[in-house]
């Protein structure tokens, strides 16, 4: 009777909640330097990456500055299902998942304080 070969553990199975490809894995971090391009280049052009990073930083900074500029101003939010609401913008959370607003004008009344789910917002506009 031969002794069966022992095993440290079983292979890990799929995560039921995600499709995987962990963005925190060393391989992902090393190889997925650009997330926008679906470029088929396996070589990384450091000049291109540099330019892309500059553009990204610029866009990010502009976006953050608009959030600051919006504070305490009346903002119109255009959302799905043809929803258009006005509110006074308070703040955004760190991941831009929710906007904290005051005096949200809804068809059923004015909500003193509310959170708007960012993924429901298509566009928002305000006067500078």
């Amino acid at each position, binding site marked *: 009777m031969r*002794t*069966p070969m022992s095993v440290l553990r*079983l292979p*890990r199975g799929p995560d039921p909640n995600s499709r*995987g490809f962990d963005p925190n894995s060393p391989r992902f971090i090393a190889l997925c330097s650009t997330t926008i391009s679906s470029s088929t280049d396996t070589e990384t052009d450091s000049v291109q990456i540099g330019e892309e990073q500059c553009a990204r930083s610029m866009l990010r900074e502009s976006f953050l500055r608009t959030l600051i500029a919006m504070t305490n101003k009346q903002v119109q939010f255009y959302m799905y299902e043809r929803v258009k609401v006005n509110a006074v913008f308070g703040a955004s959370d760190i991941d831009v998942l929710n906007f904290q607003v005051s005096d949200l004008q809804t068809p059923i009344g004015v909500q003193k304080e509310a959170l708007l789910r960012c993924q429901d917002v298509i566009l928002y506009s305000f006067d500078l």
Partner: protein
Amino acid sequence: MAMRQTPLTCSGHTRPVVDLAFSGITPYGYFLISACKDGKPMLRQGDTGDWIGTFLGHKGAVWGATLNKEATKAATAAADFTAKVWDAVSGDEVLTLAHKHIVKSVNFTQDSSCLLTGGNDKTIRIYDINKPEAEPQEITGHTSAIKKALWCNNDTQILSAADDKTVRLWDRTSTAVVKQLSFDMSVSSMEYIPDGEVLVITYGKTIAFYNALSLDLIKTVDAPASIHSASLHPDKDFFVAGGDDFKLYKYDYSTKEELESYKGHFGPVHCVRFSPDGELYASGSEDGTLRLWQTEVGKTYGLWKCVLPDFLSQLSCVLAGSPPVCHIAIG
């Protein structure tokens, strides 16, 4: 002390696993992709079988899957009449290549610049991945559905196996047939080993080895049951095969002697491949699982750990100069 093989079962697929492929050895190890009739091909770490991700997008059974050498790109062939190219790091779909019928086989060139496809429309196609909108180069000639199409001879030639019971060698530039092999029955699988230019073909109960350049027969070996797939070890000392009787067979390549047979799968074995380092081989089955098998049973590798009974382990530790540790033998 002889140990008994403990296969590692990779679950996750919900339908039969029909194809599998390894990448080359990368700085992050090597990887394994599995094609499944559930339409969701999966990427796994090659030496442990750990799931990394699932490529989502196909709308039909996936019949063929492959990885490029660096495991940065994946390609899949499906019953939804498309072949898809994926980013194997992010899992994102990069390209969809529409075909006129079920696509069965996909294969990258060494530099990953071109993709070879073959399927039920009997035509071999070569796509330039950097110019996907361009019309693919087409190679016609097969009179039945193509099962497998592979680059060979430094990507200058193409080997294809089809249901018309032929295996054909084509020149890429002229698209003409260079040589052809005819069989009495359909070829069930084909594997190309660039190092040494060996072609492994299975049909019926036979595993046949050919010179990939001349298509001269090297040798044939008959198995106890109908074989669906076989793979030759990188060092060309063993080959493994699996098929209808659910078992995996291991043979000595030089003597053709059957060395071992392993039970484990609950359905016919559809595909089997050695890892690039030859330390293990993976099998895919009708039972929806992939199993990893050690080439040298008893060796510590991947998730397998050699655990000796108490006395022998203390002895080996003393001989190696390290303090003895208490091991528990499982038996």
